């Protein structure tokens, strides 16, 4: 894959570099290729989506990029330093909210602060601000069991952001939500990201979500998991829901769709 970083005129430094990464699982029926020599670079503050069908290895890629899973070959670099263990310079959001049931919304967000030994007063203040920013003021002291699916995912996003990480990794964060809640969360995420310079690596199987949010969309195809194409999205920001109806937006969606049609992921 040749992904040149020539897009931005004053070239920003590369934050994450995935270099010729392969992942192979051993199985009864011989080796299974999950990732086949995948390379990609992400700059500081850049929003990169990886879009692809289930089983194309995109979640595996994210896990390895987070240092939470090992690769079979290749390497991951963060600011030119080799990643050899779980990274802590990031915030993680999983498809399932992964909230701790015995902690309130606020306490769940503050877990990150406790782990990083942030000043409790400052952390408390920031957690409340973040919860308010995603429309959860008044729910700080609720336990997860009395929150809706969308609310829980919002709390988990706040938890991933309270320490202002340079990198946010999201693994199909809106996959389990209804479409209206998704739209709202996509808007919230765009706003939150524009307010800080967090680079986001966003895994999704929704083409529309990828185009809407991203500076760059990485299209992956399965068997084996390979990067097929990288598309720069040059829609103006902030993006609005109405923009999804624009010809430019449709053009980008079409481009991704073509890849899936050409590779047999979708058949007409």
């Amino acid at each position, binding site marked *: 894959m040749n992904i040149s970083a020539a897009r931005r005129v004053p070239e920003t430094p590369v934050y994450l570099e995935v270099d010729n990464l392969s992942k192979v699982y051993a199985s009864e029926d011989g080796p299974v290729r999950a990732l086949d020599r995948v390379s990609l670079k992400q700059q500081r503050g850049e929003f990169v989506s990886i879009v692809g069908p289930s089983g194309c290895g995109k979640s595996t890629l994210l896990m390895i990029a987070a240092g939470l899973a090992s690769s079979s070959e290749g390497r991951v670099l963060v600011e030119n330093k080799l990643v050899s263990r*779980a990274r802590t310079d*990031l915030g993680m959001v999983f498809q399932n909210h992964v909230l*701790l049931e*015995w902690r309130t919304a606020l306490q769940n967000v503050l877990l*990150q602060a406790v*782990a990083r030994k942030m000043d409790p007063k400052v952390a408390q203040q920031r957690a409340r601000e973040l919860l308010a920013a995603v429309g959860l003021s008044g729910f700080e002291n609720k336990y997860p069991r009395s929150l809706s699916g969308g609310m829980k995912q919002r709390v988990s996003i706040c938890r991933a952001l309270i320490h202002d990480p340079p990198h946010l990794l999201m693994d199909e964060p809106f996959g389990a939500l209804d479409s209206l809640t998704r739209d709202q969360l996509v808007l919230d995420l765009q706003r939150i990201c524009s307010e800080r310079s967090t680079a986001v690596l966003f895994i999704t199987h929704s083409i529309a979500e990828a185009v809407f949010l991203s500076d760059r969309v990485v299209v992956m195809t399965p068997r084996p998991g390979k990067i097929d194409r990288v598309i720069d999205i040059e829609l103006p920001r902030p993006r609005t829901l109405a923009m999804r109806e624009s010809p430019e937006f449709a053009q980008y969606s079409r481009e991704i769709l073509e890849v899936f049609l050409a590779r047999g992921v979708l058949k007409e």
Partner: protein
Amino acid sequence: MGSGGQTLLSIEQVEQRVQEQNRAKRARDRRAELIYPVLAAALLLVVWELVTRALHVPVYLFPPPSSVIASTIENWQLLLRESWITGTEILAGYAVSILVGIPLALAIFQWPVFSKSIYPLLISSQAMPKVAVAPLFVVWFGFGLMPKVLIAFLIAFFPIVINTVMGLAAIEREKIYLAQSMGLSAFDTFRLIRLPDALPSIFAGLKISITLAVVGAVVGEFVGGDGGLGYQLMVANGSMNTPLLFAGILALTVLGVLAFWMVEVVERLSMPHQEKASGSVGSP
């Protein structure tokens, strides 16, 4: 439904009505939860009383509730004293079960080699009827408190171990990933995430165990006791004092329920986020 619809209610009035109806229904349900079991129990006692009287069942065979109650009142000091002894045995056996069971479970969870060597042994040991070991304990430790505590422990500790190990192992992988990405130390991960995550399962084990500890203590007294409710049951049985036997069973039941309730209170205190205690597995 509203009356005919001539007077249209405002939505606030509808809200208020629905809210009130709901409150009334909840109060009714709460009352029913209390009243029905009490009524059923009372009915059972009345039928029992009437049947034993009508059929002239001899008291030594099947005493009517009235004579059981009379016997309970007559022997209350004795029953209280014996309950104290048995209660001590139960609590001591239970305490040993926790003090051994939880650390053992942690060790099994923490060290795979230890787990691989001890776990199969532990599970196959459960096939052995522990009651059969009781006479041996009497030979080894005599007639005092010790053998009863040991039998109670032997019977009660296993569910604690199993449930703790299973609770710790059942954690979602993502929770551990989350802890790693936050840079939590192994100890903090355990303290903040693994242990609280396993608590519902641990308490399920603790609740099964407390009922088993009661069984263990009574078995211990059967086999070689000079006191306690189990011993008293044997004495009453030997002298054909069936009303006292029933009174002893009643006292044991109360003791068992009290012990179980105690564990439930601790459970509720340690998991305030749960509306209700997690099920009632092994409730007596």
